[in-house]
């Protein structure tokens, strides 16, 4: 999934809120903690974050409210101007862009979905979805055709003429998603898109979202405060706290090897067997001779439970999606994970 050059590359990004953050940051002694900075009268929205997002990757940024995840994403799209560090989007330093270039970038490359939808109340579904196209000056006929296409994609056909207030929350978010996809963006930001929805609808929308992603293969930065949601969707998860990234890794690694105590606390309550994949638990081949049918590396240990219990081999070959054997899974290790350490 990760490709040669990252789509978004952030290096030592700082975002401080306060009276004169720029001056404060340049004069700040390195190593000050979040609380130190707060004592000085500043809030570290983003604190020295370096992160990369690869092409076609889904990075989920996870954290409690106030941890800075929304701020970080708004820095990526320059809805916030950063205080320090650099952010490059497809190799371009976005802080160096002038207003015109920034507008062009947003008109052609970026789409964003908001927690409370951010729909324009005076426009119909169709006009909301066509809004970004209208802003970049596409003609009426063309933008209508494209808007109808995405409306169909999110399953809202027949509601084109409705106004946002006439729709349910789930439907409104579908409009938000359709709008963000209208310009066929390369990068897709989703800021807690499903948090405002009730649990049943949320699940349905997640499935819908995964279906869309499979179809479109966008580069995605997805924010959530819901760890289950993060595990379900992510290629990689970045866990944030007090503006800093505590750990950024695959779900398997986060669950298996939490980097900090804070991360460990998150993973405590999680049923690890449902998260960890066979390939994540497997060790490299290193010349070990394995025999028999291989198991699917993309399956979770939980999915493989029956097989693991029935299969008596101590070492199970693990294969990737193409069927090539990539590693070896120790049965005991998998059983321990499944049943809890004895």
């Amino acid at each position, binding site marked *: 999934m990760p490709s040669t050059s990252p789509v978004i590359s952030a290096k030592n990004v700082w975002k401080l809120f306060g009276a004169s953050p720029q001056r404060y940051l340049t004069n700040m002694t390195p190593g000050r903690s979040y609380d130190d900075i707060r004592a000085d009268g500043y809030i570290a929205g983003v604190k020295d974050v370096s992160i990369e997002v690869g092409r076609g990757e889904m990075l989920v940024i996870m954290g409690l409210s106030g941890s800075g995840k929304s701020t970080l994403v*708004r820095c990526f799209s320059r809805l916030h101007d950063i205080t320090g560090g650099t952010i490059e989007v497809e190799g371009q330093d976005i802080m160096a862009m002038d207003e015109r270039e920034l507008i062009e970038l947003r008109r052609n490359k970026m789409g*964003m979905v*908001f927690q409370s939808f951010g729909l*324009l*109340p005076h426009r119909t579904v169709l006009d909301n979805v066509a*809004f970004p196209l209208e802003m970049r000056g596409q003609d009426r006929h063309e933008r209508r055709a494209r808007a109808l296409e995405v409306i169909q994609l999110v399953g809202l056909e027949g509601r084109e003429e409705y106004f946002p*207030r006439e729709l349910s929350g789930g439907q409104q978010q579908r409009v938000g998603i359709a709008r963000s996809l209208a310009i066929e963006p390369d990068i897709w*930001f989703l800021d807690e898109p499903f948090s405002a929805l009730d649990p049943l609808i949320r699940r349905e929308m997640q499935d819908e979202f995964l279906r869309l992603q499979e179809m479109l293969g966008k580069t995605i930065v997805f924010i959530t405060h819901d760890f289950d949601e993060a595990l379900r969707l992510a290629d990689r998860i970045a866990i944030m706290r007090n503006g800093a990234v505590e750990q950024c890794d695959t779900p398997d690694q986060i669950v298996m090897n939490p980097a900090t105590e804070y991360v460990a606390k998150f993973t405590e309550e999680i049923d690890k067997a449902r998260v960890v994949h066979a390939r994540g638990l497997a060790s490299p081949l290193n010349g070990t001779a394995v025999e028999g049918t291989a198991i699917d590396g993309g399956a979770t240990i939980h999915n493989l439970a029956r097989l693991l219990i029935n299969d008596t081999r101590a070492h199970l070959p693990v294969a990737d999606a193409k069927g090539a054997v990539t590693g070896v899974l120790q049965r005991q290790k998998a059983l321990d994970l499944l049943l809890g350490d004895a």
Partner: protein
Amino acid sequence: MATLSTDLPQKAQGASTRSQVLCLLLGTALLLTLAQYLSLLPAWLHRLPKEMIPPTAQVLDAAFAFVQNDLGLIHVTRFIAEGPLEFLLDTSANLLEGKRRWPYLGPVPWTAVAGVAAVVGYALGGWRLAALGAGTFIWTALIGQWKMAMQTMSVLTVAAPLAFAIGLGLGIAAWKYAWVERLLKPMLSVLQTLPFFTYLLPAVIFFKVGPTAGAVATVIFAIPPMILMTTLGLKKVSPEVIEAGKMSGCSRWQMLRHVYVPAARTEILVGVNQVIMLCLAMVVLTAFIGMPGLGAKLLAMMGSFKLGRSFEIGITIVLLAVTLDRMSKAWVVKQPAHFDKGTPWWIRHRMPLLALGVFVGFLLLAQLFPILGSIGRKQHFSQGKEIDFLIKGFLAMDGIRAVTEWLRWFLNVKVLIPFRDTLLSIPTPAFILMVVSFSYWLGGRRPAVFAAIFFTIVAFSGWWDRSIITLYAVISAVVLALMIGIPLGILASRSEAWSRRVLLACDTAQTFPSFIYLIPAIMLFGVNDVAVIFSILIFATVPLTRYTVEGLRTVPAELTEAADMSGSTRRQKLLSVQLPLALPTMAVGFNQAIMFAFFMVIIAAFIGTQDLGQELQRTLAGTELGKNFVLGLNVSLMALTFDMAITAWAERRKQALGLD
């Protein structure tokens, strides 16, 4: 705990210095007054001697003359007045009342206006508004006031859109640039407290007597709330909607045009409602500078004590006000609704088409039946004389007469005149100290400092006694209004149904142009001080009652339930739970009552007062712009003093109670 224990002594200390300052201020004031009563006070401490009063009016006159003539502003304003503005006014006057100007098409038949009003009413709020809209115009035509009403409306149709556009523009500028807002804010607070006579004279001088001056004064009068509402609405747009706009790649202009302004629709439309209502109120008042229309007729009728006709004109003005208010408010809450796919265009646009059809239909019908076009002098149904006879007969009945006469005597001899004389007997510095201590006690240091500055300016303006008489009328009326309005509000708030009714009545009464309130006052008490106080009193009672009901009704249910469960009686609940929590809201009503009183006391100059209003009214006849400004500013400064103190108190109280 640690912070608590360190805080407490500090607070106690603050309280003690506070009461010390208060004692000092009041003590000095009392001492000065006492000295005056014992004739120990030197005369220059009682009232400023004439020599010490700076020639502010003359200086202002010179400044105005410089701007007007030497800088040539008069040419600019006269050009606007005689050019585009007059053109617009002539056009609307031709269409509505048939003034012989381009485009020589009017007047539009009254049936067509009523018909379109009905369709607009229906589109905005269903059958009831349709009936109200049509009914208002049918009444106006049948009662024989069509031409007057249309004279008023023709200025309104020009002034309201102008005020809207200018207010919107300035509101956007104030929202966009902090320095514009900083510049506008103090100007707006002065403009909102400035008596309307002060708008009128400069308008006359710079923009010619007649409709143009009336329109200009009206526009200026109506702009402030539009600016405030626009800024408020734009600031309230949800951050996500803004971000959605930015992420959609909007340029700045696109952001404003497609995101901010539509998202602030509600507040902007509330601004439109206020613009329309203020325009109507002001257009009626421009009668004082000789603008023809409903106001002028009402002024003439009241002047010659023709109560029947005054009553009828009053009804017309009230109906117009209610119609305009209800329709514009219905527009505020109206949400767009979708049409199903494949709806033909004539159904999508059925309301404009219907309005057009009705308009053209009545236009044609009026060619066949002239009575549908206009109602002649002898054809209308005015019952002026009969109503006059009835009202006067009613008032002459022994019981009624005895009550009004006794009230007049009692209020005048026992309350008002002694109170006024007491206020006038207080030496100027003592009076200022008293106002300062009131502001300090209520609002704290900042309002107190401003009170001192403002009242000192008033003292140096040379119109101290007249200012005190103005203040006396305001205070007496507001105190009486408190005694009536608050119990009324408390009573009404006891039941849901009555709260609703009283709120509706108050909201409706607030839409009436202030001029209307003179009618019952003159009817009951004739032309004297009591009528002045009475007209202010009813005008000021409305906001007091309204906010009392609102304050009491919005006390959180858990708190009243908690009081009930603690076994409190109704009285205990009211006194120790509901009233304390409602007080900040009630303070808003109190503040409004005082502002309204300052506004009304000036209008009451018409009845005959000895205060600033009277002097102001006199300036209208001449060209004493400087004097007019000094007088107006005095009213404004006194009003602002109270406004600042009460607002500061309400804000602090709200914070302390943790309400919004």
